[in-house]
């Protein structure tokens, strides 16, 4: 035993000495006090940019914008590194803490990515450049909030600005025009109209709404949509950003949960929806099964292809036809500047360029949904026109509310599981909200 003691002592010392995370140099994350916006005068710079614009129209727009930027500023060379979303998400953490970190990166907004990077001081606050380039004029406050964090990374949705997105997304209601016509209905303009349409569709033997909730998260979008009708937008925002000051266990939220359950009770969803996958569900809608589908603008291209001119898209209507829109929505991955950027000014000039008015035109032309100047664009024909109009209205009227699962690092899981329990009648609306409140309260202290 006595011969082993020193070995054990050494092992314990070694264990204690190498605390995980101690070898990654933390940055200060402070921006320069003075910024230069004349990119041509910055001298020779090489910008390493990590993006995830790898598919179809996304790849096309970034290639085109990069080329235009190079022509305009030959002194700045862009070294583009493109990866799929998943690859980017898994490798960015290591890349940012390494010696050879990229200058500009596309970082996911949520707490688990951007929030963590901010906390570790790996991203620069963009506020000085936002002022110099007048970004708040170009972007709605409701959009910029998705890239705002307090300097310690704790508060999401307000504080410093850490990135700018190019594209937007919004969760609305797809409807089958042909089916509405055969039911003798117009696209509903108020929420009571919408619920009446669901009832009428059910009565006529149609499936009112497609839902595939096997993957847990799809019901989050449906609940968010219902919630927006009875809970004030600022309360939803506070809850969804996980800030202290709101509560899940309110009468408004109870109403939302009760309404959602009543839809399931009345048979408005397909049978066995908790055991149906997300993809099969929207594909079924694309095959003409179901009158409505609550889903995001990311399905636009696929549903257009499947249903042609038979499909329409609208924002969830309010209680009255002229009510302010309240709609779950967000942004594509924002572009951020790392604290190791060799020339933050050049990096900011690049971000400014790919989000400019001209860039928004390029985005539209390549089949993307631009996040600024949306209403000024010439949208694509068909479903695209509805989507552009809906998103433009949501932005102009400051109607966007964040995804509910942003709230805490565990909320995606808690909310998804709790909604399955609620819709599967394993939990009452009160128990459902109690569970969300527990998660929220433990985090938003």
């Amino acid at each position: 035993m006595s011969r082993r003691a020193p070995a054990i002592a050494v092992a314990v010392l070694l264990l204690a000495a190498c605390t995980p995370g101690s070898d990654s140099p933390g940055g200060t994350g402070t921006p320069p006090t003075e910024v230069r916006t004349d990119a041509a005068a910055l001298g020779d710079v090489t910008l390493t940019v990590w993006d995830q614009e790898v598919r179809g129209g996304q790849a096309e727009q970034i290639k085109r914008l990069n080329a235009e930027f190079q022509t305009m500023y030959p002194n700045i060379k862009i070294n583009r590194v493109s990866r799929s979303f998943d690859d980017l998400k898994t490798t960015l953490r290591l890349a940012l803490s390494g010696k050879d970190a990229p200058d500009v990166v596309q970082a996911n907004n949520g707490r688990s990515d951007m929030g963590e990077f901010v906390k570790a001081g790996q991203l620069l606050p963009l506020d000085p450049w936002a002022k110099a380039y007048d970004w708040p004029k170009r972007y709605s406050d409701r959009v910029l909030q998705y890239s705002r964090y307090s300097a310690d990374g704790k508060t999401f949705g307000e504080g410093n600005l850490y990135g700018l997105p190019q594209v937007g997304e919004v969760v609305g209601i797809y409807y089958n025009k042909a089916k509405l016509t055969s039911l003798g209905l117009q696209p509903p303009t108020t929420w009571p109209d919408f619920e009446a349409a669901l009832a009428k569709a059910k009565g006529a033997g149609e499936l009112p709404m497609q839902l595939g909730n096997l993957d847990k998260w799809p019901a989050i979008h449906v609940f968010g949509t219902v919630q927006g009708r009875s809970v004030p937008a600022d309360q939803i925002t506070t809850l969804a950003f996980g800030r202290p000051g709101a509560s899940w266990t309110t009468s408004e939220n109870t109403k939302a949960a009760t309404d959602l359950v009543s839809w399931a009770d009345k048979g408005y969803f397909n049978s066995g929806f908790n055991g149906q996958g997300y993809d099969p569900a929207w594909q079924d809608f694309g095959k003409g099964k179901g009158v409505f589908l609550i889903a995001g603008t990311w399905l636009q291209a696929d549903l257009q292809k499947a249903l042609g001119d038979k499909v329409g898209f609208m924002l969830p209507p309010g209680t009255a036809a002229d009510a302010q829109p309240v709609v779950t929505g967000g942004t594509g991955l924002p572009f951020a500047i790392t604290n190791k950027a060799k020339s933050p000014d050049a990096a900011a000039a690049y971000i400014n360029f790919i989000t400019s008015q001209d860039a928004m035109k390029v985005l539209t032309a390549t089949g993307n949904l631009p996040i600024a100047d949306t209403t000024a664009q010439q949208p694509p024909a068909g479903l695209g026109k509805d989507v552009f109009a809906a998103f433009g209205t949501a932005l102009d009227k400051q109607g966007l509310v964040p995804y509910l699962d942003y709230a805490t690092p565990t909320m995606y899981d808690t909310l998804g599981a709790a909604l399955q329990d609620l819709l599967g009648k394993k939990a009452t609306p009160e128990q459902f909200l109690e569970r969300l409140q527990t998660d929220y309260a433990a985090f938003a202290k």
Partner: protein
Amino acid sequence: MGSPPGEPRRIGYLYLLPALLVYGLFLLYPLGRAVHLSLFEWDGISLGKFVGLGNYLEILQDKGLRASFGHALVLIVFYSALPVVIGLALASVLHRAKVRGLGLFRTIIFLPQVVAMVVVAVAWRQIYSPDGLLNDVLRAVGLNGRGWLGDYAFALPAVGVIGTWFETGLVTVLLLAGMARIPRERFEAARLDGANAFREFFAVTLPAVRGEIAVAVTLTVIAALRTFDLVYITTSGGPGTSTSVPSYEVYHRAFELGQVGSAAAIGVCLTVLIFGITFGVNRLADR
């Protein structure tokens, strides 16, 4: 005092060195590192905080996590007990019967093992879906279908059945190989003593393949306890948390919640549990 014949012992160890190095580097080091990490509260980026056995205490107190270990035990029934019973029956029939094309049957039974688990999971997800194959069959015979993977009573068994389907082939082929080793004279002797097929099975076949059964149980229990891909793809632990298992929790905590220390602690517990069970199984079989 003469030394043992051959080269000195120290030189003997030298021959083992390359293998030990590889073993240490790729197995012992990661294992030690996991134990090390499990003592910290760490988000994967910033500086970790030493919490000693805190993560382990939390595991003991976490009701959801205890439930997930319970689910893993249920899966053992489907992954291990059922395949061994079915495999024994199948193997003894295949072994006794002089069927033409035995090789073909063996291949078919073994086929699930060849297919990647992810593919298996995707295929079964479609079979179980509300308008999938299983419900079509049920409706054809006048029964009501349901969304199997979204049903609180049936989701865990449904995931388990996939495991049964997957592991039975492996067990059958293992046992067939074991039965082929039994000397023919023993069956003849049993038959001379007037044993029927059942007596023959219990008196001759079963005792002879005890070793193979132990191997099969060990392999399938390990497969049951480390089930991740199947749950991840078919149900994501749902509906609610009714199919969540420990390995899914490891992934979830480490990569989605940024609780690396807690995830490592679950992983270590799982390793100890698997080691304990396989150790026990082998002790029983060797007796």
